[in-house]
């Protein structure tokens, strides 16, 4: 009999004995090799977590494969991380290397710990969402292929958190990531009066526009868009299927960088736009992968040990960042929305 509001399974049912025994009693951890965390409990117990990359969009076959490995190497216990990696919870040190070999044999990379690139938090894209300006999984695959070495090694100055969101709804922490790829539109919605008339609440639609670009049109019982004011956020499309925003010729990807959410050292910070637009070139989005790799490489070779991407840029200054990367600075980089004032350089001190 199905029950209503029963809530999720209790997590304790999901924990391996070593965790149940040492719950809240972990003492410290080390990272013996990329992809492996060794946590040591107060009583000396040792837990090895083997972190494996996942495409996140997975079939039940994949899950069953992973379960088979978990059964074999860790008594049937595993977990997923907040970045969609898989963690095998190994309590027998001797099983760590065999597990890694088994994973690698299946083409599953082990890594993402310490000063590495972890998995890319991402979204639905053309696979399942109705508002995307680009695909998500495809770009993620292309970028992770390209940056694979940074996942399996720990050769970056610090953790590198990359996110991908296929529209400005930004389902994920793209707005606070070291590097964010965001699907963007570049042309105003084309109003399909018929669709708007059907079931769209006009006042809500008008109110949904951040820049006040939408006015009701009593004649057509639909709306008109002031194209000058529209900045293509697509929020109106979320409100009404009649606000057709997708435009294959002009949709693409923006790159923002330098955000973080941890409080370590510096306060959490927003990602900042560095490339306003790159074209949608499926299947492998070469412009996007190249841009991301370039930023990662300039960061890796210039930042100090322990410096997150944004910390590095803030230390050297954004004007220097644009010089070092050779990325062109345009009027698009300058904020013109509500909190723009705070971004203006109200100081005569800057680098040339």
């Amino acid at each position, binding site marked *: 009999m*199905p*029950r209503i*509001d*029963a809530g*999720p399974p209790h*997590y304790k*049912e999901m924990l391996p004995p070593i965790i149940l025994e040492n719950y*809240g009693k972990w*003492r*410290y*951890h080390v990272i013996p090799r990329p992809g492996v965390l060794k946590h040591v409990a107060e009583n000396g117990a040792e837990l090895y977590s083997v972190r494996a990359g*996942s*495409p*996140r*969009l*997975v*079939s*039940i076959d994949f*899950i*069953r494969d992973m379960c088979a490995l978990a*059964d074999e190497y860790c008594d*049937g*216990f*595993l*977990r997923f*991380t*907040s970045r*969609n990696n*898989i963690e095998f*919870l190994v309590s027998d040190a001797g099983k760590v290397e065999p597990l890694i070999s088994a994973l690698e044999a299946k083409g*599953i990379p082990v890594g993402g710990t310490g000063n590495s690139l972890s998995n890319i*938090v*991402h979204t639905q894209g053309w*696979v*399942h*969402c*109705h*508002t995307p300006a680009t695909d998500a999984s495809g770009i993620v*695959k292309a970028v*992770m292929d390209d940056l*694979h070495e940074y996942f399996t090694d720990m050769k970056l100055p610090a953790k590198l958190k990359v996110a991908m969101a296929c529209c400005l709804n*930004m389902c*994920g922490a*793209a*707005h*606070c990531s070291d590097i964010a790829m965001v699907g963007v539109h570049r042309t105003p919605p084309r109003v399909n009066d018929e669709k708007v008339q059907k079931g769209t609440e006009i006042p809500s639609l008008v*109110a*949904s526009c951040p820049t006040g670009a939408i006015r009701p049109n009593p004649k057509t019982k639909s709306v008109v868009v002031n194209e000058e004011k529209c900045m293509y956020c697509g929020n109106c499309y*979320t409100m009404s299927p009649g606000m057709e925003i997708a435009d*294959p010729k002009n949709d693409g990807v923006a790159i923002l960088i330098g955000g973080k*959410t*941890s409080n*370590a*050292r510096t*306060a*959490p910070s927003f990602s900042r736009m560095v490339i306003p637009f790159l074209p949608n070139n*499926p*299947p492998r989005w070469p412009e996007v992968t190249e841009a991301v790799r370039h930023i990662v490489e300039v960061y890796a070779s210039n930042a100090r040990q*322990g410096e997150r991407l944004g910390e590095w840029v803030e230390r050297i200054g954004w004007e220097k960042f644009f010089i070092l990367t050779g990325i062109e600075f345009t009027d698009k980089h300058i904020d013109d*929305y509500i909190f723009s004032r705070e971004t203006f350089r109200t100081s005569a001190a800057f680098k040339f």
Partner: protein
Amino acid sequence: MSEKKTPQLDELEKGQWPSFVTEIRKAAAKNPAAEDLLGLLERSYEEKKGHWKHGGIVGVKGYGGGVIGRYTDLPEEYPNLAEFHTIRLNQPSGWFYTTKSLRTICDIWEKYGSGLTNLHGSTGDIILLGTTTENIQPAFDEFSDAGFDLGGSGSDLRTPSCCVGPARCEHACYDTLDACHNITNEFQDELHRPMWPYKFKIKFSGCANDCTASIARSDCSIIGTWRDTLRIDQDAVKAYVQEGLDIQGAVCDKCPTRALKFDYKKNELNVIAEECTRCMHCINVMPKAIRPGQEKGATILLGGKSTIVQSAFMAWVIVPFMKMEDDYEELKDLLRRIWEWWDENGKTRERIGETIYRLGMGKFLREVGLPPVPQMVFRPRANPYVFWQQDEINK
């Protein structure tokens, strides 16, 4: 459809990172909807355009959310995608599973769905991608029998999530898994029956490293901290010195408040307790030698969300320190007061952070009954535009 070529997607089966295309292909081998999905996606890759549209609301009896209706705009060509809804299942705290429980999910999803999933969705749910209107209820019934329940969607509480916390992390300042589970169960009604101006997300991180990115991704971010002094084990400090760690450079100089003093001669590290802001940096670098204090609890922050409409907001401090105990009554009570206020004051599709931004922290604090403290702000206001209350002025 099975004969259709997918030259573009094929390109995405190359390369070292595991391929989602391969995954769809695996599902396609067994399921016609997954097979259609390959075709539809290839088409999107050719046209650079999505092919999903808005559509009717679908759901489970007794629930107002948890299922996202999805329909292709090319139902003639991809009939198996005419309905391709998402079911959101509430994950267990910390995303821990037994293989048994995962296999159960797979079995049910093989029966009623496309066989495709996201482990996990960005909010934290188990995302089951692609089923028909008809199959939703029976699928739910079986999931329910297996001990799973729906997550959130729509203008309701969204599925809370938490970091691995005390289950495997030495830094955890409160029991994130228990808190997440407890709060999720307490607010089942809020989670399952949309009733607010907009969505409301809660995330639990055990310390200021914020491994759930809660400050950016949740309306209410609950971050572990301590009120006394971090603890330093001087023997372990000496061991780090011996290992060659540059304590002055890598730890002291990077402490944001310069609260740490390293004595070269004695190889001793000391903290000025009241200067420490509990940022976690020194603990991260020297987990064997430094750990949180003993009077543990959490900081409550409010207002995080992404870009639309008024800009992205990060959550900000509304309670500097709260003990995470007594069945979380203090937190629950606070959440209820916040929701009540938001319900009364929020506009449709206005996140709590935007409502407070529009109406002011002063009004919010007064009406929700929270005492104003300097910890709520980086710095006080720069303008002199103060509102005075009737009882504060001379009549």
